[in-house]
């Protein structure tokens, strides 16, 4: 099934065709913002090596969301992976996910871990949350520290762009891409116990793909 949406950011990468399995659900627009309580945004923060494709995304929840994570089992785990595993060890809920493309913040040692802490604290302050309510994902070149100044300087505008709309979800889905030729975003509506619920998501990935997450 292919979603022909006029995805925000589509001038950078068009939306992927989504091959959903058959089932008691219907496709709805909106990706991560389709479910109630979620907002998203994507913008160009100056992190990519070249071009001005959006490279910074934020997904927030209006309430304490029950949180789960599944992470690479590669022992050279990136700093954001180590950070998220720690946060989800001490907390069952979260309120936001900050995602950057451009640099993976992997193989960056203690300095890279410090960068994650600073980014989580900065976005938490702007959202009036505690740092441990924020989760972080990074993707891009391994071995390079994130362009932290550019990222931190972009956060106020990123927060101001947060929106519960389809455009918010679509721009976030574009902002997390790296070598992807398409953005990946989908949402469905179904019934659980007779009540309408929605499940949505976005993803990225095109190379270095053989996930073994746990």
């Amino acid at each position, binding site marked *: 099934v292919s979603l022909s949406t006029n995805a925000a950011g589509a001038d950078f990468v068009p939306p992927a065709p*989504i091959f959903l399995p058959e089932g008691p659900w219907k496709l709805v627009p909106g990706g991560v913002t389709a479910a109630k309580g979620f907002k998203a945004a994507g913008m160009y923060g100056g992190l990519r090596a070249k071009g001005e494709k959006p490279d910074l995304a934020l997904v927030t929840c209006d309430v304490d969301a029950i949180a789960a994570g599944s992470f690479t089992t590669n022992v050279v785990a990136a700093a954001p992976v180590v950070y998220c595993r720690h946060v989800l060890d001490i907390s069952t809920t979260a309120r936001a*996910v900050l995602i950057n493309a451009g640099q993976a913040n992997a193989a960056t040692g203690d300095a890279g871990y410090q960068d994650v802490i600073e980014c989580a604290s900065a976005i938490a302050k702007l959202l009036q949350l505690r740092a441990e309510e924020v989760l972080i994902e990074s993707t891009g070149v391994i071995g390079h520290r994130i362009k932290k100044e550019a990222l931190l300087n972009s956060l106020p505008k990123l927060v101001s762009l947060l929106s519960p709309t389809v455009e918010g979800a679509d721009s976030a889905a574009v902002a997390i891409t790296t070598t992807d030729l398409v953005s990946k975003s*989908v949402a469905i509506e179904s019934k659980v116990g007779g009540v309408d619920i929605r*499940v949505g998501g976005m993803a*990225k990935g*095109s190379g270095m793909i*053989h996930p073994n997450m746990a």
Partner: protein
Amino acid sequence: TMLGVITTDATVTGDIWRKMVQIAVNRSFNQITVDGDTSTNDTVIALASGISGSTRISSLDSDEAQQLQACLDAVMQGLAKSIAWDGEGATCLIEVTVTGANNEMEAAKIARSVASSSLAKAAVYGRDPNWGRIACAAGYAGIPFNPNELCISLGDIQLMDGGQPLPFDRAAASAYLRQAGEIHGTVEIHISIGSGEGRGRAWGCDLSYDYVKINAEYTT
């Protein structure tokens, strides 16, 4: 690297949500492959707001849990397949379905072994219905099965049955692969290894010259 963010407004307890998410990840993202490289950054974060007001799910066995699990599996599979479809240099998505195994895990492992095979991927790119490479990749998956029960089909074209290679229309099989490549469609590989109940799927893509070109230039 693959990243994912999943959101829902269903109501679920923390420990059950974590179990459901891992089950769905194992049926989706952990069943895709493009190049066999497991990234340092692979992450899926899943958040449940509960704002729908649906029944609070606190057990995996309830009907509500099965309904939410099915939705979670579907969304993650849709996203996971789009990642494999968009593999670097890919011209088509490869969907490998394995049946007849002892259980879901064993079927999934064989399916992913075939989807990961560089030789099988290159054969698809060369539009070569090379059943031997498919049989080989199934054989080294680490799951024992009777090779005399191995059946392999490419789309609707059966290439092997009961462990015996079949005479087949090579031009038609090659045309099937070429057409999929021309529309960036899906090549379906069906494998049966016996009469067990276990079935599993994996998704990958063909291996083209562009994969090397892209990665020779995208350096650290």
